[in-house]
């Protein structure tokens, strides 16, 4: 089968690989119909996540058709069309029982601080991912969710990660009616987070990025205010203080993570020299621009070591900080309703459809923000058969 193949930082290709096999009685094999490249893949692509091995297949956002099931799989059957949450969750460990499906304790041998993810380095459990024609999906009784009649594959594939992630970013911000929320990052995740803040009753939503085309898109899609931190302001923290009558925002969301721009010291130590687990510029700004007693909600991803952030200010301002990998499966019932009722239209984020054969171009375009890209979808050759 054709699959994405990691060769080293900023080097990927599409090659023929052996078909995935059932390795566990609760596994399923899925023929992939749509699969995305995510901001999280960029951390791997750039070589910033330890234990990213040459020869791995990435891809944690995909939908497809079940073509084979293990002997203990009863919840899905061959022929079912499913969305596959990016986190691998057993559904029965103490963390899964609490709905923390992004923190399962039975899916990642390699790290205890990280749940198991599809296609996310060996630090994420070493599971080959879905940027391929077929993928092995563990715990098929629990994760894969039927795509409801009438839902497009494009909407469905965006329910496997970025829609639940944006939603959880807003949820973790503890928004109360009328709150002012600032979202750092106008990538797919940040744009969806800004959109979801309104569902929780936000009174004002502001998004910050440096790409004008993304800010323009966010303004329309998420109906929020949008500002460019490079051209609209000298210092984002001063700007946000001023626009909130010198109090600060009620909540700030970091939807950028390790690849943040905007501060040379953070960029050099975090992205070039790998002296920290990525550049923490957005998180730094979030902590400093939230009001006293406010909430910082982090969905931007960082590596497993340390980051330079003003933790003293968290204490002095009495900030609550929360973060997590989105618990996709927990959000799906509600988000499926929102999509079916027309409240959310995730597929509008898709700007590019790229054949899997051209996966290297897809990565370059998404990483370098070429051709006004927001969200690229890869289409495997067998998707149309």
């Amino acid at each position, binding site marked *: 089968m054709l699959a994405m193949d990691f*060769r*080293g*930082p900023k*080097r*990927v*290709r599409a090659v023929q690989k052996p078909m*995935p096999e059932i*390795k*566990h009685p609760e*596994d399923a094999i899925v023929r992939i119909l749509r699969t995305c490249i995510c901001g999280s893949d960029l951390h791997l692509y750039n070589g910033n996540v*330890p*234990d*990213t*091995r*040459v*020869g*791995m297949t990435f891809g944690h956002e995909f939908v497809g058709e079940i073509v084979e099931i293990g002997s203990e799989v009863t919840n899905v059957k061959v022929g079912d069309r499913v969305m596959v949450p990016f986190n*691998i969750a*057993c559904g*029965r460990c*103490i963390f899964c*029982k609490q*709905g923390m499906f992004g923190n399962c*304790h*039975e899916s*990642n*041998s*390699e790290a205890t*601080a990280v749940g198991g993810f599809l296609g996310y380095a*060996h630090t994420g459990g*070493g*599971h*080959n991912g879905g940027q391929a024609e077929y993928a092995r999906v*563990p715990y098929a009784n629990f994760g894969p969710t039927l795509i409801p009649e009438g839902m497009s594959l494009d909407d469905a594939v965006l329910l496997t990660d970025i829609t639940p992630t944006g939603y959880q970013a807003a949820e*973790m*911000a*503890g*928004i*109360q009616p*009328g709150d002012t929320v600032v979202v750092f990052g106008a990538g797919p995740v940040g744009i969806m987070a800004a959109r979801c803040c*309104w*569902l*929780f*009753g936000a*009174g004002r939503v502001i998004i910050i990025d440096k790409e004008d085309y993304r800010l323009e898109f966010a303004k329309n899609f998420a109906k929020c205010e949008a500002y460019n931190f490079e051209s609209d302001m000298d210092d984002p923290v001063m700007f946000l203080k001023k626009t909130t009558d010198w109090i600060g925002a009620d909540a700030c969301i970091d939807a950028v993570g390790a690849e943040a721009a905007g501060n040379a010291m953070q960029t050099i130590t975090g992205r070039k020299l*790998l002296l920290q687990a990525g550049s923490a510029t957005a998180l730094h700004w979030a902590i400093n621009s939230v009001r006293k007693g406010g909430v910082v*909600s982090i969905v931007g991803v960082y590596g*497993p070591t340390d980051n330079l952030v003003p933790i003293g200010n968290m204490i002095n301002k009495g900030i*609550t900080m929360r973060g997590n990998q989105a618990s996709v499966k*927990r959000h799906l019932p*509600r988000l499926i309703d929102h999509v079916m009722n027309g*409240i959310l239209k995730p597929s509008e984020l898709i700007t590019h459809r790229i054949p899997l054969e*051209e996966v*290297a*171009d897809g*990565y*370059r*375009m998404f990483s*370098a923000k*070429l051709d006004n890209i927001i969200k690229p979808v890869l289409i495997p050759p067998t998707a149309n058969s």
Partner: protein
Amino acid sequence: MKKTAKDFAHIPGWGIDNDPKNEPTYPNRHRTGEEHDGRSWVRPTQQVLDREVLHSIERPDYTAVVGNSVPPSGLSGVIRRFAFKYSENSYLHWLPLLMADKVNVVEGILDDFAHGTVPNIFVEKGYKAEWKHSPQTLVLKLAAFTAVTAGTILWLSSGDKKKPVRRSRY
């Protein structure tokens, strides 16, 4: 003046998920108390290992399912095995893993050659797309690369480089 739902009529779904219980620690308060019983759940069937899998020493055994991606191999594998002797709390875990990743890239290129493949760096780096959508960036990169290469060649071929002075030991 306090805004009401009417002010947000233009935003589909405004406030529909507002929930007074949504204080910031939501939803982790759904604790069951079972944490206090340790690893007490009925575990899924253990996957039979068909390749070498490294496991964090912050757990006593493998998770019930393990990944199906590449096992450790070669020199990078030796470094990874060393790293997994240390806990996730230690730099001796993460820094060697980052080093192993670099070694692994060289191994990947050698492996390509061993299989008669010359890696097509231009394609793998997605320069085709960059050439199409941002040719000036690519030209700048190539110019910088050429300058550095030419400079290095000139320097290496300039002949009378001073021999490094050897410090006498005493």
